[in-house]
């Protein structure tokens, strides 16, 4: 098949290339960075800074690395769950909503347990998981019972969740001593996640993310439900032939991804933020979708990709504070990365050849 306006054509391979399955994200990253360098010079900055702001600066100090891992935590948590869902061909695009629902639930428990000490934070995280699960279960129920498309439903629920958050911080959970600002009171010490490294903001949530990734790996490789969800995504007719319950797969992946996204949200409010505000998530739930794809829907790849995405976020913030560039650059890079990844993925199933002369 010819590529327009070029001397190249795409020739299908006999079987997918293992090399390109893992090289494709690297190629996509390379192309994104190149675009970044171009963008930087168009904006009047040195292209080298595009690389340094995003990849070198953030990793040059102990505190910097901690910040990267901190940022990666909610991304990794949500993306591990999404990787399972996408593998089962359940397109949970509403992780952002589940994350927000989890943060509201965690905040509610943290505030309710104010002054009681002890392990309030553990309850808060559990509540966050439940909140995310509950939010995701709306999507699951509508798909199970009504056959409603989960992409649109979960997305609509994102907007609903955002409005709910806004309502909650302007109303029921607003800090009475906060001068009318839309934010909750700060949480007690007992309702905050313990830190991992002194002098940094890195908290236990990061370990939770690693544990989730390990559990997901085990699930996929060794468990029956993991096998069932893989088959459901690869060949739904074969799943039906085998007698696997598609309903069970649907609920399992949505509840797990909802819970993990919820924990991500809960970790944000009981971790670095310490309170509930309207800006709980700068689009982590959507970035997690990209992380899941870049990580090849594999728990290990997802962890690596979440660190990469964290670098994008922090690089954007650094570019803003140091160079005066808009932090919305991050959003542009995220979109470009996914787009380039899709383009590079073509190489997994096709070879590029110089155009053959017609017969």
């Amino acid at each position, binding site marked *: 098949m010819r590529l327009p306006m070029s001397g190249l054509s795409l020739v299908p391979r006999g079987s997918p290339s293992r090399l390109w399955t893992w090289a494709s994200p690297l190629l996509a990253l390379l192309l994104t960075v190149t675009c970044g360098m171009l963008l930087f010079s168009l904006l009047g900055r040195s292209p080298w800074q595009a690389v340094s702001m995003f990849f070198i600066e953030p990793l040059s100090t102990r505190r910097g690395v901690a910040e990267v891992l901190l940022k990666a935590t909610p991304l990794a948590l949500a993306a591990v769950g999404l990787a399972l869902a996408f593998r089962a061909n359940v397109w949970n695009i509403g992780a952002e909503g589940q994350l927000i629902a989890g943060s509201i639930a965690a905040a509610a428990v943290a505030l309710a347990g104010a002054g009681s000490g002890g392990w309030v934070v553990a309850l808060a995280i559990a509540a966050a998981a439940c909140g995310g699960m509950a939010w995701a279960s709306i999507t699951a129920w509508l798909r199970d019972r009504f056959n409603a498309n989960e992409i649109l439903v979960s997305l609509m629920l994102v907007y609903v969740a955002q409005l709910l958050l806004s309502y909650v911080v302007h109303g029921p959970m607003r800090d009475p001593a906060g001068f009318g600002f839309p934010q909750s009171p700060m949480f007690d010490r007992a309702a905050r996640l313990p830190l991992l490294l002194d002098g940094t903001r890195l908290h236990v949530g990061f370990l939770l993310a690693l544990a989730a990734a390990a559990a997901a790996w085990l699930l996929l490789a060794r468990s029956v439900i993991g096998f069932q969800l893989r088959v459901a995504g690869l060949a739904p007719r074969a799943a039906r032939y085998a007698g696997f319950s598609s309903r069970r797969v649907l609920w399992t992946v949505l509840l797990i991804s909802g819970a993990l996204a919820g924990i991500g949200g809960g970790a944000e409010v009981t971790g670095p933020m310490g309170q509930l505000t309207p800006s709980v998530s700068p689009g982590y739930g959507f970035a997690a979708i990209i992380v899941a794809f870049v990580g090849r829907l594999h728990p290990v790849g997802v962890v690596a990709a979440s660190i990469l995405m964290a670098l994008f976020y922090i690089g954007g913030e650094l570019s803003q504070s140091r160079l005066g560039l808009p932090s919305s650059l991050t959003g542009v890079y*995220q979109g470009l990365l996914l787009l380039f990844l899709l383009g590079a993925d073509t190489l997994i199933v096709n070879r590029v050849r110089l155009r053959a002369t017609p017969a």
Partner: protein
Amino acid sequence: MEAAATLVAASIAAGTPMLLAAIGILAHERTGVVNLGVEGMMLTAAIVAFAVAHDSGSHVLGFAAGAVAGVLLAAVFAFFALVLHANQYAAGLAIALLGAGASAFIGLPYSGQGLPARGADGIALLRDLPVFGPILFGHHLLVYFALLLVGAVTWLLFRTRAGLVLRAVGESPESAHALGISVRGVRLAALLFGGACAGLAGAYLATVYTPLWAENMTAGRGWIALALVVFATWRPLRVLVGAYLFGGVTMLQLYLQGVGVQAPSQLMSMAPYVATIVVLALISRNPRWIRLNMPASLGKPFNPNA
């Protein structure tokens, strides 16, 4: 009575961006392609239209620029979906995210800015008629254009050979290809048309409906438009009705305030999203009915060389 008339007129105006976007979606979904990137396309077109209208002083130039922006993003999508045979859903999502990011990026210098005033909308004298005046004659040009577009698409789809070819491609690209029809060409044309429509929708939103720029100002209208096309079972006239109904739902707050109901504004703003979910659930209940009306090849990759 006056209040009701205002509500109806406002619903029509509010439904127009969804109508424009949905008609474009209908056109390309009828050929079997799903482009989830509408929201991102609308956002980018919105800021481009705003920026051009702001800098040039001409609204019309803004519309044109918005349409072009939509077409360009649709072309990018078409490259990934039709040439590289990437997964349509993932490619559409990528466009949605990229469009959102790009719009925030471009829009920074424009937040808080205003646009030069435009003349009053609608047809003079006629718009001042009681009750029906504002409903029928008081709208901006683009509202009437959207109506015309619905008529044109209906005529094209069901009364011309081009429409026949379009529907054939959507039902079975393999058979169409065997007949010598260029599946890729038809799909590309439909996608670009869809891009232009999404572009006009975004432009209308940012330059006419609420003449300002704010990040994520489309607030999910693109996604609602996608759902609308499903509700309308891919028929243009039903899309028209659905879009105006949803416009009405977004006006709920206005209506309730008019009747004296006090509720937190955020909860009332949830109305269009909850409504979309409810209608989606009701419509999807019978899977056979959906399959009967849906273009059979929707979302499935077509590669004649594989």
